[in-house]
């Protein structure tokens, strides 16, 4: 009797332990995420209600003061507008251009595709600050800069590219998108190569070719990859443009290249106002969270995944 009890107890215990096993498997990742993502997030949320600096442990509670200061500031509207404007430029440079280039390679041989892939991927593996320094030479405001030398051939006066409120943002966007374009091109090529040949052959047999083939067969099958590129661009756009802004413009001239992400850095590490930086971070999280949720909802209805 007691032996049967004991067996039953052992079975229950191993069942319980068995239920724990999946949690043990995910524990290492979960601990890292909790420690380095959710804990800082919680602390950022907490800090957003205080004012102080990064050295002095004394902080004063200001309630929603940091939020009202940031949102009420004359710069806030500009920051939102410029973040959106840069995101549009990123969608062109980091989604439209690489995906279009990938589609163009459909007409090439495998060897030619490999060649272009290697060529376009080079900027991805160069350190970003090195990339920016190379571009800084191109954008030099004197006659010796590459772009001003080209302008000189056409009899034009040299321009202070990065000090011109109209030219600085497109210039910065060019650098950031040049850096990530190769990687997104690679993803797009992989997405296209993953489309089963038999689907395309079946479409050929049915008489499809050219634009109808792309629109009705290739694009729907490419959509999950396209969605992925779109999402990583939207999430990473302001992050990707940080280095050229930091090295070349500091958000200027007169805020022309500033955006929400760089403003967080400025508040936190240039002006040493962690409370205001935290409030801006929370605002950015809410805005991006909403954007990504909306994007998922939109594409969930329109993108077919092969399961």
């Amino acid at each position, binding site marked *: 009797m007691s032996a049967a009890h004991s067996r039953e107890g052992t079975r229950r215990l191993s069942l319980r332990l068995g239920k724990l096993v999946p949690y043990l498997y995910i524990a290492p990742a979960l601990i890292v995420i909790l420690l380095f993502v959710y804990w800082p997030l919680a602390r950022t949320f907490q800090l957003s209600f205080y004012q102080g600096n990064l050295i002095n442990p004394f902080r004063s509670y200001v309630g929603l003061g940091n939020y009202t200061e940031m949102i009420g500031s004359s710069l806030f509207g500009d920051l939102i507008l410029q973040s959106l404007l840069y995101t549009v430029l990123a969608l062109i440079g980091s989604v439209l251009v690489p995906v279009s280039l990938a589609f163009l390679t459909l007409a090439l041989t495998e060897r030619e595709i490999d060649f272009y892939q290697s060529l376009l991927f080079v900027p991805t593996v160069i350190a970003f600050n090195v990339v920016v320094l190379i571009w800084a030479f191109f954008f030099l405001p*004197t006659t010796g800069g590459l772009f001003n030398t080209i302008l000189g051939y056409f009899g034009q006066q040299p321009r202070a590219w990065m000090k011109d409120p109209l030219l600085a943002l497109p210039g910065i966007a060019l650098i950031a998108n040049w850096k990530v374009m190769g990687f997104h091109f690679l993803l797009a090529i992989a997405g296209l190569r993953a489309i089963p040949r038999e689907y395309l052959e079946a479409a050929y047999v049915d008489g499809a070719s050219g634009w109808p083939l792309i629109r009705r067969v290739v694009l729907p099958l490419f959509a999950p990859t396209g969605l992925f590129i779109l999402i990583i661009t939207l999430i990473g756009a302001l992050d990707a443009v940080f280095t050229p802004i930091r090295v070349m413009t500091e958000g200027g001239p007169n805020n022309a290249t500033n955006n929400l992400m760089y403003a967080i850095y400025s508040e936190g590490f240039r002006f040493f*106002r962690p409370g205001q930086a935290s409030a801006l971070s929370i605002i950015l999280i809410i805005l991006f969270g909403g954007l990504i949720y909306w994007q998922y909802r939109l594409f969930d209805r329109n993108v077919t995944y092969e399961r």
Partner: protein
Amino acid sequence: MPVSDLVAAYGGEDYLATFPQNVIDLTDLGSGPIGIAYSLSNPVVYYNADVFTAAGLDPSAAPTTWEGWQEIEPALSEASGGKPVFNFGYGSDNWILQAFVESAGGRMLVCENGEYRTGLDSAEAAAGLQAWADTVLSGQSINAGYNDATPAFIAGETVTYTYSIAGRGNIQDQVAYDLRATTFPQFGENPVRIPGGGNFLTVFATDPAQQEAAWKWVQFLTSPEGFTAWTEGLGYVPLLPNLTEDPAYLADFVAANPIEQVAIDQLGSVVRWTSFPGPNGLAAGEAAFRATQAALSGEQTAADALAAAAEEINTLIAGQACAG
């Protein structure tokens, strides 16, 4: 750790006595010095003397006034093949902005009824920034931050470069022309007021052995030998009196490097660099930096840009008490 505590514990009274009182005062925030000033720089006007010669001008008699520079600008531009003559590298520290504003009679910061406010909304401040902006907008000057301004001058892309004396060693090592320098220009009858730059050495150690070692190290760095190595290598102005006249230290070096003498000669025009007070001081400085950029790009006049910046700065530094 206060200097008085270091002296009481580890000695150094004789060493302290070698410094002039105004140098000791640089690190005194009201309750005694908290360190020893190590470096002092000020902005000088470097110039390419070869272009002066090509223009038929005497390279040893560069102008010392804004009007003087404006007079010879066309000749220098022509002799350089149409290159911009001026180059005022700038950054978010507002160092060159302060030199223009205060030399034109304005003030970055004023004390009024016991509280600080900025003086950037004055007509004098606007005149100073507008003078600079006009050179950019007319093509006399390039519009460049420090990162671009220095290589542009070294490459001979501009005839002059107004920059810290601390850049002397770097620039001198790289230029392929006759490099000289003159003092920051005077505007009309206003006295020249240029901000000082630099740093000081202080002891943070809590362990007595480390404190003593650090204090000895500070004394070595600021000894005649230490200052000699520092000035020869970089260009910072030595803070011990008479070193530049002593053949055992910097007399020969200064004789061979007259550029260094320029920075020493204009020490009397050096004023304290403006650090806007309070926890929002750096954000206030950024507002002045944005105004500079707006004026230099022609987006706004200097007066409009500075008026907007002053409003923002005064909100950011509101309530910061001052004596006066």
